């Protein structure tokens, strides 16, 4: 069981969006996490995964089919809504505008990655007044560490998969080394946390309309 201190509960209550970064070795866990999200999940969820632009990816379609929550590829100037999961499209950075619409961006890759986890984490944290939950899973490079640091230093909740449980621990380890993160969680604790977020947000939803 994950221990939700009052400090963490406060951050969950404030949160308007969840951002998830994931790369090599993290796809299975990500898939399971999204499939079990309830239809009325109270947050917008934005996911950045590293994947090749060369192969047509069907992860969004499969997840929509198998899960309860709508899963989409974020489109340019599309509005971000709660209760929906958005994936960054391959080969573009994903940014959020002050009016909560997405902007795609074809600027230079970071850590050889486009989309970059750091870019999206920072952009969404900025627009949401840092009221975000950042989750970083398995991966083979250091993308995401600066994004987690940014969210943490600005008051958002930071969650990193336990590098010992990650199939490739480089990415979560880089984040833990770069800054103090709120929660370092084993896989079953991440599921647990998502359930807690749902429970806490549902209770407080009337006080905290998005």
């Amino acid at each position: 069981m994950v221990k939700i201190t009052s400090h963490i509960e406060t951050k969950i209550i404030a949160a308007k969006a969840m951002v998830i970064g994931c790369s090599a070795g993290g796809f299975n866990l990500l898939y399971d996490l999204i499939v079990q999200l309830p239809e009325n999940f109270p947050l917008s969820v934005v996911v950045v995964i590293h994947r090749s632009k060369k192969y047509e990816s069907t992860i969004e379609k499969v997840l929509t089919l198998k899960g309860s929550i709508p899963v989409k590829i974020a489109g340019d100037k599309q509005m971000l809504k709660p209760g929906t999961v958005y994936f960054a499209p391959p080969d573009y950075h994903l940014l959020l505008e002050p009016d909560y619409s997405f902007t795609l961006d074809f600027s230079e890759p970071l850590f050889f990655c486009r989309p970059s986890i750091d870019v999206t984490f920072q952009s969404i944290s900025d627009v949401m007044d840092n009221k975000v939950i950042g989750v970083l899973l398995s991966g083979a490079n250091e993308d995401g560490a600066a994004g987690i640091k940014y969210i943490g230093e600005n008051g958002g909740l930071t969650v990193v998969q336990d590098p010992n449980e990650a199939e490739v621990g480089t990415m979560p380890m880089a984040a833990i080394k770069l800054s103090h993160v709120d929660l370092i969680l084993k896989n079953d604790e991440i599921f647990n946390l998502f359930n807690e977020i749902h429970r806490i947000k549902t209770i407080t939803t009337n006080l905290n309309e998005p």
Partner: protein
Amino acid sequence: MTASAECITFDQLEDIIYLVDHVHGFNFYDYSRASLKRRVTRVMNLKRLDLFELKNLLVNDEQFFEYFLKEITVNVTEMFRDPGFYKSLRENVLPYLASFQHIKIWNAGCSTGEEVYSYAILLKEQGLYERSLLYGTDINSDVLEHARNGVYDLRKMKLYTENYRESGAERSLVNYYTAQYDAACIHNELKSKTLFSIHNLVSDGVFNEFQLISCRNVLIYFTVNLQQKVMQLFYDSLQPLGFLCLGSKERLRNESVAERFKLIDKKFNIYQKIG
């Protein structure tokens, strides 16, 4: 990237947009804020400037402004980017273009020119190059100079060659450039029908009539409002039955314009003006 580095707020960004308009006459009001904020922050961190120093340089240093203009617009491009797009051009558009007496192509937001030369190669291979003219336009004079020179990093040619092959090419890309040390120089022949000049999609109007307009991954940096305005400009600049090519993630947002286009390729966003 980190919180300790320079980072501006959206309000401070508005100040900079205002300053750039009033001092230099460049209008960025209809640019997407998220992208602009990131680019401005990037310049501040590259040059180690705080907000005060940045504003000071923007007002007092003309040379700095040229640099600033180049850095805040995204100038990333490739030869034969999205090979499937070029394949679709070969199959669905070039046979049709061949029926025009003159073929004028406008690459709006051409940056350093890689896409213009990709079009030149396609036209050459179809035997259409001699009756074609290719215009590349951008708001930044530095990137246009680069485009005119047609000299690219040799290391990038590996990717471009791969793209070119996947686009259904029958020859090799090496036929079109000469490698010198670490540079790839585009052959003069491909430059003879190309013209690069300044054009600002925000403020400039129709300057010619074209058979094909290509503007890929430029509109994403604009607000919906400006995207709609630019669509009208493209419509007005196209000959009847001319073609419009957008980036694969972009949309023809102006409804009154959209209904006067026929969709040629859904995946790669190719349209033909029919009304």
